[in-house]
């Protein structure tokens, strides 16, 4: 494997790790809200979170590109803050991936929170646990399988994305060129040997991830 292949692998893993971490941080409150709310907005928010499941990545990428571009609201904000423009940078790629992988993290965690039901939290309250305390000491431990599934799916999905990376990140070696794009480049250049190495690696990786998911967490099999 050549140096830029390794760089692509490294970049992919870095991107997926950062995105998974961010998704756990931001996805958990969304999942909690969706699982517990009686608000009429629940359906709307749930649908927005699920949009990336059905939209072509190019559509999502297109809008993100426009918003983060020099005339878009996010672009104007980042420029005003002195951060420059996000498209074709690693942070831009992270933001796009967070949106794109959101449902894969939120939905398993939301399902897990819903499965817990009201009762354990009521019991915790009658045992002097504040809502914040009960969230950490009861809800999170009981939803652990959901967190595990969410993290694995979010990570794997980020590793596997292609369209949105091309739209937002382009193809800058060491900065935004991830494995899936690298494979595309190799195939374009008819470098089938290199493409085989990376593609085979991806197949093996994806298989191992799903194997882990199904072995350690058999209940998820139906939901997937």
């Amino acid at each position, binding site marked *: 494997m050549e140096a830029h292949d390794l760089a692509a692998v490294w970049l992919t893993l870095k991107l997926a790790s950062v995105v998974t971490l961010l998704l756990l941080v931001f996805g958990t409150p969304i999942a909690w809200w969706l699982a517990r709310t009686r608000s009429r907005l629940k359906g709307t928010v749930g649908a927005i979170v699920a949009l990336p499941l059905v939209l072509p990545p190019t559509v999502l990428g297109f809008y993100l590109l426009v918003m983060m571009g020099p005339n878009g609201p996010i672009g104007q904000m980042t420029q005003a803050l002195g951060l420059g423009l996000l498209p074709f940078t690693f942070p831009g790629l992270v933001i796009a991936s967070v949106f794109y992988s959101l449902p894969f993290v939120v939905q398993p965690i939301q399902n897990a929170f819903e499965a817990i039901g009201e*009762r354990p939290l009521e019991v915790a309250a009658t045992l002097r646990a504040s809502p914040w305390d*009960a969230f950490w000491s009861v809800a999170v*431990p009981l939803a652990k399988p959901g967190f595990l599934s969410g993290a694995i799916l979010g990570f794997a999905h980020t590793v596997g994305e292609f369209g949105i990376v091309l739209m937002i990140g382009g193809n800058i070696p060491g900065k935004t060129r991830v494995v899936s794009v690298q494979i595309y480049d190799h195939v374009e250049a008819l470098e089938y040997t290199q493409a085989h190495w990376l593609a085979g690696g991806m197949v093996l990786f994806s298989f191992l991830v799903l194997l882990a998911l199904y072995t350690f967490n058999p209940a998820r099999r139906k939901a997937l």
Partner: protein
Amino acid sequence: MSLEIQARFRVDRSAFTLDVDLILPGRGVTALFGHSGSGKTTVLRAMAGLERAAAGYFALGSEVWQDESRGRFVPPHQRALGVVFQEASLFPHLSVRGNMEFGQKRTSTATNRFSLPEIAELLGIATLLDRAPGELSGGERQRVAIARALLAAPQILLMDEPLAALDLKRKLEILPYLERLHRELALPIVYVSHAPDEVARLADHLVLLDQGRAVACGPLNEVLARIDLPATFADDAGIVIEARVAEHEADDLTRLEFPGGHIHVSRRHEPVGTLLRCRIHARDVSLALEPPMHTSILNCVDATVVDLAPTDTPGHVLVRLDVAGNPLLARITRRSADKLAIRPGLALRAQIKAVALLG
């Protein structure tokens, strides 16, 4: 420590209205009895603060946990109360000990009257502490749930049909522990139930709920002996007496004494002097004007008729009697009542065909 519990709740839901105004004694077991849909569980949940009645007032002595007229509502986790639900609802990610320590860790040690070993001993779960909840029987799980609630230093224990999810064997296994709680802990208990047996066995005070309203509230026997109420207990109408074991007789009978007379039952293992609760069903009491001479019925007490009222059983009436200040109910046919000219003030003999000993 004799506090008074004041509970006023009004809940309006589309198909259900709850409107109760209760003053309960701050000691002993108060049973909230009623059929499903009578609102008893809603009252309990409102007391715990798990449901917020739009118009509500709840105070334990001087401690006011809810007073909507002043906008006061203390959230459940800041109320010093314990709740035992119908299902034990143990935390599956914690061991038995972890479950018991959950509330204990969150209360200051100063307010905690009980230690974990003491409570584990009281409820017979000392050997189960390192088990996971999934390894316990239903009865054991419920005992752990009670222990867990007690260790959170409650000033009042709320129990929502804690035996309803258990089969008869498990119920009989757990009832003695509930009686022990009652005897050994100075802790008011509010006990929701729809089982007349449990109420007769455990309660000191009884609140009858029907369609969201409290139709009667008072000391157990006072409520049980009321014949003017809708037939809440129906065929189970009857009263409860506290009797003392007086003598174990030679022919395998035990004589029990209660104010107003004595009754014989099959030999008991309790030592002389023990207080026993007995339940006497109205259907097991018959009346005679003369002291019956040739009869197989052993238990016979002097009584005076207080009042009589129709019952739900066709052709029958319910007669309320006074036995040296204690109430007694008899259910007899209307024909017999007419034949004997049963009327308030009449002195007669009440024959007790059967006594159910509780505990």
